[in-house]
């Protein structure tokens, strides 16, 4: 896989908020079907990096590429809007707080964007919603509203909503952090299913065990740089950098202290 053309590529990404440099020259290549997990302490820039990929948080410097398209290419405003709206259809994103549309039913949450952007018929849209909901195990909730769902169910609908656009890559920003512990597993299972189907995924997570089980490669970020990266067995079992060791030790301790 190493010589494959990267599917998603970040080149020398820099991001500043005023004087604060939150991403310092980060480069990253992700191959088709690869699963990358990004870990690191709070404020290290994980979300900022992830959100740069679909230009939700535009980079100050550097390039983001999806296949042969530069996501953040410089264009006049109007043209850029058209360009980015097209690009984003290929990049699914799942948020920590789900961000379902509360005024729309589960079905409508899933079909809104495909209907508006792909001009599919009502019947096709219904089929799409049913298909995606089956995929996340929520077929019986199609006519519910988000307020009637548990957190885990909401997140699974959010995943179905993103998948309904048939994205080429999926971004997850702490998809399970807002969930009660007993609801985490159902969302993880859906993500694992996606992994088995060779979806290209970039996952920001605080769950080391999950990262280890699902990712091909782990990135450890701290202070706006990628301190260390490698396959999970290497990064978790034999970290090279002092900061990685400290972070992992802290996490292990926190987990050991957590009530069972």
């Amino acid at each position, binding site marked *: 896989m190493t010589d494959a053309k990267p599917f998603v590529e970040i080149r020398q990404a820099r991001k500043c908020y005023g004087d604060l440099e939150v991403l310092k020259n980060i480069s990253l290549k992700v191959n088709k079907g690869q699963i990358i997990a990004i870990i690191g302490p709070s404020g290290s820039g994980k979300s900022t990096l992830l959100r740069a990929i*679909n230009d*939700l948080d535009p980079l100050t410097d550097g390039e983001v590429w999806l296949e042969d398209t530069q996501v953040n290419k410089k264009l006049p405003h109007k043209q850029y*809007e058209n360009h980015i*709206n*097209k*690009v*984003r*259809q290929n*990049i*699914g*994103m799942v*948020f920590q*707080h789900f*961000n*379902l*549309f*509360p*005024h*729309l039913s589960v079905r409508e949450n899933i079909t*809104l*964007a495909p209907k*508006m*952007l792909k001009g599919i018929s009502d019947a096709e849209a219904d089929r799409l919603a049913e298909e995606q909901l089956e995929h996340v195990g929520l077929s019986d909730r199609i006519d519910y*509203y988000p*307020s*009637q769902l548990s957190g885990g169910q909401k997140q699974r609908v959010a995943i179905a*909503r*993103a998948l309904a*656009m048939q994205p080429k890559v999926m971004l997850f920003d702490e998809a399970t952090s807002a969930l009660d512990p007993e609801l985490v597993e159902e969302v993880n299972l859906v993500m694992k299913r996606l992994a088995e189907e060779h979806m290209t995924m970039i996952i920001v997570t605080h769950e080391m065990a999950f990262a280890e089980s699902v990712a091909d490669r782990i990135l450890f970020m701290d202070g706006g740089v990628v301190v260390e990266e490698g396959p999970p067995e290497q990064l978790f079992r034999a970290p090279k950098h002092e900061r990685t060791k400290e972070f992992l030790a802290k996490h292990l301790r926190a987990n050991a202290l957590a009530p069972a």
Partner: protein
Amino acid sequence: MGLDLTVVPPFAGLILQGALWTIAITASAGVLSFFGGIGFAICALYAPAIIRYPIKAFAWLFMTTPLLLQLFLIYFGLVQIGIDIPAFFAGMIGLGLHFAVYNSDIIQTGILAIDKGQHEAGRTLGLSRGQTLRKIVIPQAVRDVVPPIGNNMIALLKDSALVSVIGVVELVHASQLAISETFRPFEFYLAAAACYYVVNLLLEFTLHRIERRIALTR
């Protein structure tokens, strides 16, 4: 003379007709104030400066001058420059725009209160800014502000009495016509008050139904 309500029934038809006009002007001005309010709110928040500032100035004008004066201006003033609007429509426009300005303030607050994550979710799916506003943000904002908008609708119902001065034979005007024939102001103003009370109940019932309908979707 005392109070003698038996003078009312012979004029029931007139009063009822007045009540219907009150309902008609409240409903049409209400619809105008609702959609106008959304339109003003969008312009005030998102339109380019050359549209935004004139709209804001216009809104400010409507906020700082009496509704009565606005009705006079629209009905008696505009004729002078060749714009002759029938009384009902002049009343509808005056009331509608006046309350649109108040609704706009409320709706703007509602739009700004929508979580940033809703915008992001829409944009991430590939929707444009306009599509995100139209399909995601504004429908939610409007749902959130149904109670204060409802209060404005009740105020609008009561202020609709003002269009009597430009000749619309709504409830107040109708009772005045009856009074001019019978010289019984107490009875007919009481009758008008009773009608307002009933129409108000209907309006509140409708608002309550709407609030219940949308409770699930918030």
